[in-house]
């Protein structure tokens, strides 16, 4: 093979390899068997990552106060904590999260 063709051929091969990995990963995750019975019994809706990170296992509340933690009046930090991402990319940041506004929950 001519030397000038090495880079273009590798570009095609690597791109094909990456797409194969992605398709394989998608199919693996869609068929993933996890410890469902255990998770249903324990019923905590989170994972073990970040347990030193302001208690992500707590349903909802502590997730949102993670940035400035639990200072008085600090229950609406979803906006202030969104500065570390690009909010417009995230549907979750654009939409109002029901239940976050307590008044709305109480109807």
């Amino acid at each position, binding site marked *: 093979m001519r030397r000038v063709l090495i880079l273009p051929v590798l570009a095609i091969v690597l*791109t094909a390899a990456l797409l194969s990995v992605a398709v394989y990963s998608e199919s693996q995750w869609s068929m993933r068997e996890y410890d469902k019975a255990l*998770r249903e019994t324990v019923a905590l809706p989170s994972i*073990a990552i970040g347990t*030193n990170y302001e208690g992500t296992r707590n349903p909802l509340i502590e997730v949102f106060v993670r940035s400035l933690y639990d200072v008085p009046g600090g229950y609406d930090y979803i906006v202030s904590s969104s500065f570390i991402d690009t909010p417009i990319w995230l549907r*979750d940041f654009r939409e109002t999260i029901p239940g976050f506004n307590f008044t709305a929950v109480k109807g």
Partner: protein
Amino acid sequence: MRYMIRKHKNLLNYSFDCLRRYRMRTAVILITFLVATTMISAVLFTKDGLEREAEFSVQSAPDLTLQYLKGGRVEPINTSYTSLISGIPGVEKVLKRTWGYAGIGQYTFVVVGLDPEGLNYSRGVITSLEEGRFLTPEDEGTGNIVIGKLLAYMLDVRVGDDIILLSESVEANKFHIVGLFSDASSIYTADMILMSLEDANKFFSMPEGQVTDLCVYVSPAEDPVNVASKMNSIPNLRVLDQDLLLRGYKAAYGARGGIFTTLWTILLVAIALIAFSQAIVVGHESQFEVGLLKTFGFSTLDIIEVRLVESLVLGFFATSLGMLLGFSYAAFLNAPGLVDILLGWAYLPREFRLPVYVSLQSVFSIYAVTVIPLLITTVVPAWLNAITDPELAMRRAAA
């Protein structure tokens, strides 16, 4: 037709030759793109994996989780709510749960107390144990616990051992280990200490008749949202459904990945500038070349095609290789240094494997934000050169 094919083939060959001829530009773009895409893909793929794992957990969560609010803050809920909630049409079961955090050394572990009634509530066989057994209703108040691998590793304990945990109220509590979770469930159980509800209430010194929250299971025929709406008038009650939890956790993991996204955006701008400056630096050389090519009969479109092909080859090679390296770095090496420092994930057990999810969406997103800017920053200078009068271009380049 044959002429057109031959022409494009020649243009392709010429572009490939340019990649070799402008070695410095090719090397600079390759290295910068490789570094950027390796780092960002490792973080994105890991973030996607964590989000998926969190999704699994949320899907396994109760249909509704009830918390007690006082002054807008969450406090322990009285167990008298159980009978009130059970009477609501559509509610199949209400389980009590007490849980919280326990500090051991500099680490925080999660202690969960399970309702004995819930242990009888059949959900299938729990196979996530490496050694020993899971809790049964008979373990209520006995001090028997099942622990995750991280705790077992840190304290160097195994099934049959006793451990003493100091509670918030500075009381020593003795527990007996009856089970050890397996590596396969580490993502969920690494930091977990499971015990009976009575033991957890004692450990956390919960006031009599109070628990952390209530788990509500709705009849399969009922819509949890409709059942939740019937709880609106119950005082001080906060109702969380699965969808709400899922969106909350997605936002949380999105934000964690976000600190890196911000850095990455800055890095991408820098890379685009490097690519642009490289295009300008070689501009003088290529100005002469473009003038010469136009003299030989190349059109503006031909010149743009040459640069376009060069950029596509460079972009796809560097980005694809970078993503494959990023995937390997996260999946096989557990992304050392990256998750700990940048994303605030405090620590990982030795046996723990990061969940890595190479989603097509992330792959195409990375291509979009790397290859397209590269195309723009290289094709635009080429176009500016190509529309200049060839003689003038060669004179300028020679000057």
